[in-house]
């Protein structure tokens, strides 16, 4: 429901951007999706840390599911960012767009996470390796951000500066609703996926017991 409200606000309520016109509305999708992806990666890494540190049962699975959802949102970010870049800068891919490049690096990184996960037999060792790799991910985010920032000139519009958000109140309200909607969507997906995976596991155990 929150998602519907967010889309309605983004399309009808917010005044059209004077400079970029209608296409600026994708901002309300692109940026919340990107922030949600970061949140998922962060959550996955936190669960990984819990697994390594406290040896909490099930933290490995939770970490994996969070990263799974994060990758889906990451792909969405890449797609929406690319469409936006096409409309406002005339190119599908702009290398000087540092946020998108960062997402590409992260996307490659987390795809490798899946490769790692699926090439090892399930068990405590797989859980450990995946947790360590997930922790590398959250360290990689700021490091690559710094690297990309060092390497490039800026044409990405920066909305959030040190003086607070640079937008009108109605825009900011819509943005917050959109962000909340995306986070809620991610959380729902996370719960659904987690329940599914747990069911799978229980089913497998049952089958083994019966066999």
């Amino acid at each position, binding site marked *: 429901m929150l998602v519907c409200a967010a889309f309605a606000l983004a399309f009808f309520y917010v005044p059209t951007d004077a400079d970029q016109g209608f296409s600026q509305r994708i901002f309300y999708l692109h940026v919340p999706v990107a922030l949600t992806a970061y949140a998922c990666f962060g959550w996955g890494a936190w669960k990984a840390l819990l697994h*390594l540190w406290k040896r909490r049962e099930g933290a490995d699975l939770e970490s994996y599911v969070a990263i799974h959802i994060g990758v889906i949102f990451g792909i969405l970010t890449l797609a929406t960012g690319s469409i936006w870049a096409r409309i406002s800068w005339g190119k599908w891919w702009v290398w000087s767009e540092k946020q998108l490049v960062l997402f590409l*690096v*992260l996307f*490659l*990184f987390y*795809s*490798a996470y899946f*490769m*790692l996960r699926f*090439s*090892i037999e399930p*068990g*405590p*060792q*797989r859980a*450990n*390796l995946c*947790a*360590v*790799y997930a*922790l*590398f991910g959250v*360290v*990689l985010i700021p*490091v*690559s951000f*710094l*690297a*990309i920032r*060092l*390497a490039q000139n800026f044409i990405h519009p920066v909305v959030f500066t040190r003086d607070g958000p640079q937008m009108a109140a109605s825009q900011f309200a819509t943005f917050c609703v959109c962000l909340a909607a995306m986070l809620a969507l991610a959380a729902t997906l996370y719960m659904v996926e987690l329940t599914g995976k747990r069911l799978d596991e229980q089913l497998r155990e049952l089958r083994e017991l019966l066999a």
Partner: protein
Amino acid sequence: MTRWLGDVRALARKDLLLELRGRDTLPAMLLFVVATLVVFHFALPAGSSDLAAQGLLWVALLFTALLGLTRAFVAERDQRLLDALVLAPCDRSAIWAAKGLAVLAFLAGAEIVALPVFALFFSGLTWQTVAGVALADLGIAAVGTLMSAMAAAGRARELLLPLLFLPLAIPIVIGGVGASVADHPGRYLGFLALYDVVFAIICWASFEYVVTE
């Protein structure tokens, strides 16, 4: 601390001795890097700028490092040595540090040849490139050793390592190329040093979990 250093020295010595007797890794890396540079010479169209060659040097070095890293845990895996090392009464991070030192030594050996060859084939060499390579080597050895240990646990080991390592190496390439071509390389060299420190710390802290269950 002295015990830890002693363990590291003994383990690194073992790796270097193995290489000295078997000579599997270093000659392969040397040949590979020279061959790659020759390929790059022909891959660059005539009249390409020196800047492009500087970038390709980093590609060549990265792939050479990858070649060495794939071999890093071969002996441990084939002879089931890693289990014995984990059982040994030493800090597990000593295994990582020793292996990293051995990788660093191989890498340095390959580069002592590769950099003059690059200078000969292409545009010459500046001190900032050498400094960048030296700093990048530390990061490559630290992160690469851990990734190599991780990949050794998987089914498709040789395939897995580049996938795991390359995304983590992108910041190294950015910093290294920046240090080679920028007018003021200080920022880039500083970034490479930061990368080394940050990743060395987390590799050191997390290696234990990679080899134990």
